[in-house]
């Protein structure tokens, strides 16, 4: 590597700058972590969606992914651990003009926030939930979580994890989500498209983003650097659109089923509310 290196730095603006709180960059995520890529794709999806961006609000919980809200230059809320979804529910119902997006991690949304997740899906509240799944709690140092594969090593499962993980697309679908997809941080184009679809879907839409955690999960399980994980996704991902999500389990080191699993129509919470309102107005008092 003794080539002549051409300077490539120019004082131009990154094309996504207008939606970033650029004064806060570089962000806190580690080298090789995929959360930034997921955020990058999400910003692309926001632009593609054509949504009026002043009416888009981002809500995050706590954890590495929970910091995402702090980097997006839109109305953004960094709430408490696990509570992004109920906070977003209040926001959405108070102002039906808003498009509300929850951008958070697997531990936040599915462990401590798991109850809120299933109930928001059941109600079919109009919101998009983006869950970056890195199979452990990164912020606190790599502890086991609700998506940690069985037998995987983490800071709190040093001999291997003796719990089964949640299969998130299956959980979301079973709870009532009308749109369910999973991609990895390698599948940037497909991920961006899926996020766009999810943003434009009425009702509870859910996109899981499988991401490397090179500092903790990948290191403790000897899976390599972030780049190695990305290569692993290239080799081990299997696209299976329309697959019954119960078949989308993820085992340690096993293949990763990706694709769009669910895309259905169902009345949303606000649809029912409007129907009730119409009935009340139609009734003679």
């Amino acid at each position, binding site marked *: *590597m*003794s*080539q002549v*290196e*051409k300077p*490539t*730095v*120019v004082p*131009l603006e*990154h*094309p*996504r*700058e207008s939606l*970033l709180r*650029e004064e806060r*960059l*570089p*962000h806190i*995520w*580690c*080298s*090789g*972590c*995929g*959360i*930034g*890529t997921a*955020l*990058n*794709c999400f910003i*692309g999806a926001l632009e593609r969606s054509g949504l009026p961006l002043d009416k888009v609000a981002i809500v995050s919980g706590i954890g590495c992914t929970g910091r995402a809200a702090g980097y997006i230059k839109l109305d953004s809320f960094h709430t408490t651990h696990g509570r992004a979804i109920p906070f977003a529910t209040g926001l959405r119902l108070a102002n039906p003009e808003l498009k509300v997006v929850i951008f958070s991690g697997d531990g936040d949304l599915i462990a401590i926030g798991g109850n809120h997740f299933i109930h928001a899906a059941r109600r079919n509240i109009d919101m998009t939930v983006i869950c970056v799944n890195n199979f452990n709690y990164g912020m606190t140092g790599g502890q086991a979580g609700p998506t940690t594969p069985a037998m995987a090593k983490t800071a709190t499962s040093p001999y291997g994890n003796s719990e089964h993980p949640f299969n998130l697309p299956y959980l979301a679908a079973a709870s009532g989500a009308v749109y369910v997809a999973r991609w990895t*941080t*390698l599948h*940037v*184009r497909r991920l*961006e498209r899926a996020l766009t679809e999810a943003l434009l879907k009425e009702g509870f839409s859910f996109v899981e983003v499988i991401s490397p955690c090179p500092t903790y999960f990948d290191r403790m399980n000897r899976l390599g*650097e*972030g*780049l190695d994980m*990305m*290569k692993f996704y290239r080799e081990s991902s299997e696209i299976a659109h329309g697959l019954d999500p119960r078949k989308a389990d993820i085992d340690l080191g096993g293949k990763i089923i990706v694709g769009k699993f669910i895309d259905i129509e169902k009345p949303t919470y606000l649809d029912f509310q409007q129907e009730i309102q119409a009935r009340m107005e139609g009734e003679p008092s």
Partner: protein
Amino acid sequence: MNYWRKPLDIERIKLPRGKVYLIEERCKGCNFCIEFCPVGVLAASERFNAKGYHLPYPQNEEACTNCGLCEVICPEFAIYSLPRDGKEEEPRE
């Protein structure tokens, strides 16, 4: 043996040309852009930024088609491409 089909309009279509830009201080040296550039524009350089991360550089800039993959796969919002000369090609959507 390969049986690639040749597109009928291959003679008429100009390949888009792009140029890669790097915001050095944001780069954390993950090498995603280098690995996944479909046409091998980027390579790791020996230069590093203030935080000690080795930066990518365009060793084969002529090959850049402005596909923007580096831009979207970069977790750091540190790299992007723009159309070169900006005239013969429209920017990507």
